[in-house]
C-alpha cells in the first residue's frame, strides 16, 4: 500500500494490512521500517541532536549480525561504573576491571602494555617470594631457610633499610647488583642487641640440606673482639674437649690437686692428687708425675738408692734429737738383780723422745745415736761388784761399765764404799719402736742406793747420723 502524508498536517498513519510493514522512504530508499511486531528498524544510524547544536549517533557495525542489548534497569549506583553485558546482551553497571596475567599468586607487571605474571615473583597473601635475581645475590625473600648463595631470612625483626646500609658501607651496593669493590666496607655490620639477633652462616657444600651455623653473642658487659688467625684450621668444638692439636688439653675433667701431663705424644692425662707441700718429680715416659712425702723441719731433699728425691735428715749437726735425763730421787735397787734406773726427769729433750714415766729414750728419727750413761751408787755395807748396762728393747744391749772386786788376785777384804760408773754406746734406732733404758746391777750387802741428781745418775744421747 502506498500513502501520502501531508507534511503540514499532523495525523496518524495506519495500515490495515496485518502483515504489512510500515516504511518511510527517502529518495526511493527505506530509511525507517516498522513491522507488525512494533520493531523499528533504522537503515543507517540513530542521530540524537544536541539541544543547542551537534548530534550523537548510534550506529550498528557494517556487518552487524543479529544482536540484542538490554539496557540496565537503573542508573549506576557509584560514579565511574562501567557498562557491562552478559552473553545475552543484558547490560548492567559494574566497577571497571581488567583480566590479570600469569597464574594465581603471581605479581602483575607491565609486559609491553599488558598485564603479565611470573613465577619468579609471587605473593600468596603472606609471603612475598622473589627469584631470578641477577648476580650473586640470587635468593628468596621471606623464606625461612636460605638457599644456596641466597639471602638469609629477612623478617620483621630484622629491619634493613637503605639508611642502615649506608651507615656501614661507604658505597652500599644495590641488592641484586654487583659485589662491592674491595675496601668498600668501612665498618663491620652491627647487629641489633635484640636477643633473637644472630648471624647465620650457610653450611659448606657436602653438608646436609640447607643447615646453617648460627653465631649468637651472649649477654655482654662490654664490647668484645674476636680476631680470626691468619691460618686455616678448626679452632673450637662445642660440646667436647678441645684437643691437644687445637691448643687444648683434650680433658673433660681432672683430679683436684693433680696436674695434667703427657701420657702419650699427643694425649694429656690428669695425674693423681699430689700431696700438699710435696715436691713433684717426673714419673718417666707415659707415667704421671708424683710428689714426695711431706718433709719435716730440718730435713733436706736428697735421693734414695733408686735416685728418687726424698726428704732426709741431715747427719750430725744440731738438727738431730738430743736429750739429757736424770734420776730425780734416790732409788734402792734389789741386790744382784738388774734393776731399771728410774730416770724420771730431763734437762733437755729436743725431740720429746724421752719418756719420764717409762724411763725410756725412744726417738722418732731413725739413725745412729751416741748414748752415754752414768750412775752414782753404793750399798749400806759393801759393794763387791756392779754393772751398768744399757738395755735396748727390753734386753741387755751393752754393759758399759763393771767393777768386780771378786776376781782372781783381789783380796776378799777389799770392798767399794761408793762408786760412780759411766760408759757409752753407739746405738741404732729405727725411728719407730726402738728404745733404750739404763739398768744397774749391784752386788754387796745392805741396802743399795742409786743417788739422784744431774751430776750423779744420768742418761744422755744425741743423734749422730742417719
Amino acid at each position, binding site marked *: 500500500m502506498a500513502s501520502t502524508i501531508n507534511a503540514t498536517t499532523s495525523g496518524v498513519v495506519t495500515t490495515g494490512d496485518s502483515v504489512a510493514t510500515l516504511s518511510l522512504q527517502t529518495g526511493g530508499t527505506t530509511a525507517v521500517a516498522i513491522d507488525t511486531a512494533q520493531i523499528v528498524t533504522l537503515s543507517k544510524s540513530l542521530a540524537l541532536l544536541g539541544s543547542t547544536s551537534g548530534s550523537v549517533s548510534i550506529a550498528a557495525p557494517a556487518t552487524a549480525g543479529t544482536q540484542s542489548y538490554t539496557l540496565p534497569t537503573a542508573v549506576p549506583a557509584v560514579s565511574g561504573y562501567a557498562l557491562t553485558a552478559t552473553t545475552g546482551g543484558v547490560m548492567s553497571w559494574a566497577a571497571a576491571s581488567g583480566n590479570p596475567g600469569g597464574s594465581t599468586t603471581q605479581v602483575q607487571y607491565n609486559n609491553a602494555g599488558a598485564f603479565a605474571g611470573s613465577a619468579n615473583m609471587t605473593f600468596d597473601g603472606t609471603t612475598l617470594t622473589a627469584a631470578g635475581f641477577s648476580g650473586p645475590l640470587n635468593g628468596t625473600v621471606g623464606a625461612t631457610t636460605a638457599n644456596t648463595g641466597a639471602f638469609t631470612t629477612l623478617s620483621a625483626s630484622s629491619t634493613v633499610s637503605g639508611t642502615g646500609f649506608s651507615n656501614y658501607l661507604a658505597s652500599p651496593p644495590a641488592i641484586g647488583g654487583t659485589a662491592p669493590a674491595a675496601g668498600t666496607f668501612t665498618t663491620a655490620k652491627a647487629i641489633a642487641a635484640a636477643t633473637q639477633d644472630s648471624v647465620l652462616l650457610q653450611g659448606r657444600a657436602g653438608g646436609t640440606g640447607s643447615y646453617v651455623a648460627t653465631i649468637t653473642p651472649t649477654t655482654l658487659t662490654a664490647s668484645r673482639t674476636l680476631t680470626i688467625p691468619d691460618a686455616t684450621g678448626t679452632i673450637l668444638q662445642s660440646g667436647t674437649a678441645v684437643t691437644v692439636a687445637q691448643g687444648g688439653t683434650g680433658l673433660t675433667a681432672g683430679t683436684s690437686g693433680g696436674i695434667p701431663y703427657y701420657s702419650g705424644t699427643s694425649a694429656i692425662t690428669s695425674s693423681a692428687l699430689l700431696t700438699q707441700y710435696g715436691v713433684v718429680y717426673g714419673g718417666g715416659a707415659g707415667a704421671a708425675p708424683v710428689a714426695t712425702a711431706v718433709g719435716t723441719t730440718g730435713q733436706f731433699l736428697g735421693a734414695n738408692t733408686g735416685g728418687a728425691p726424698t726428704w732426709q735428715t741431715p747427719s750430725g749437726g744440731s738438727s738431730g734429737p738430743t736429750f739429757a735425763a736424770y734420776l730425780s730421787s734416790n732409788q734402792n735397787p734389789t*741386790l*744382784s*738383780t738388774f734393776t731399771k734406773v728410774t730416770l724420771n726427769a730431763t734437762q733437755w729433750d729436743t725431740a720429746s723422745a724421752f719418756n719420764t714415766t717409762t724411763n725410756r729414750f725412744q726417738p722418732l728419727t731413725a739413725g745412729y745415736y751416741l748414748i752415754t750413761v752414768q750412775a752414782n751408787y753404793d750399798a749400806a755395807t759393801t759393794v763387791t761388784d756392779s754393772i751398768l748396762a744399757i738395755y735396748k728393747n727390753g734386753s741387755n744391749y751393752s754393759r758399759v761399765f763393771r767393777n768386780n772386786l771378786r776376781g782372781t788376785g783381789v783380796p776378799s777384804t777389799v770392798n767399794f764404799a761408793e762408786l760412780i760408773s759411766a760408759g757409752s754406746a753407739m746405738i741404732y734406732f729405727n725411728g719407730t719402736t726402738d728404745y733404750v733404758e739404763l739398768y744397774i746391777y749391784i752386788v754387796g750387802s745392805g741396802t743399795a742406793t742409786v743417788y739422784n741428781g744431774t751430776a750423779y745418775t744420768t742418761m744422755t744421747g744425741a743423734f749422730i747420723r742417719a
Partner: protein
Amino acid sequence: MNLYEKIVTLYPELSNFDFSKGIISLQNDSDGRGDYIAAWNHPTLPRPTDEQLMALEAK
C-alpha cells in the same frame, strides 16, 4: 727375803758369776711388779718353781 736370796737359798752352790754373766738373770723393771727371773740358763740346776719360791716366802 728377795728373789735373789730365795734362789741362793735353794741353790747355795750358785755364785755371783752365775748372776752377773746372765746364766741366771734376775731383773726388776721398776714398774711395781717387783723382781722376776728374766733368764734361767743354768746347765744343771732347774729353774725354781713358783711353789718353791712361795714356800721360801713363808719362812
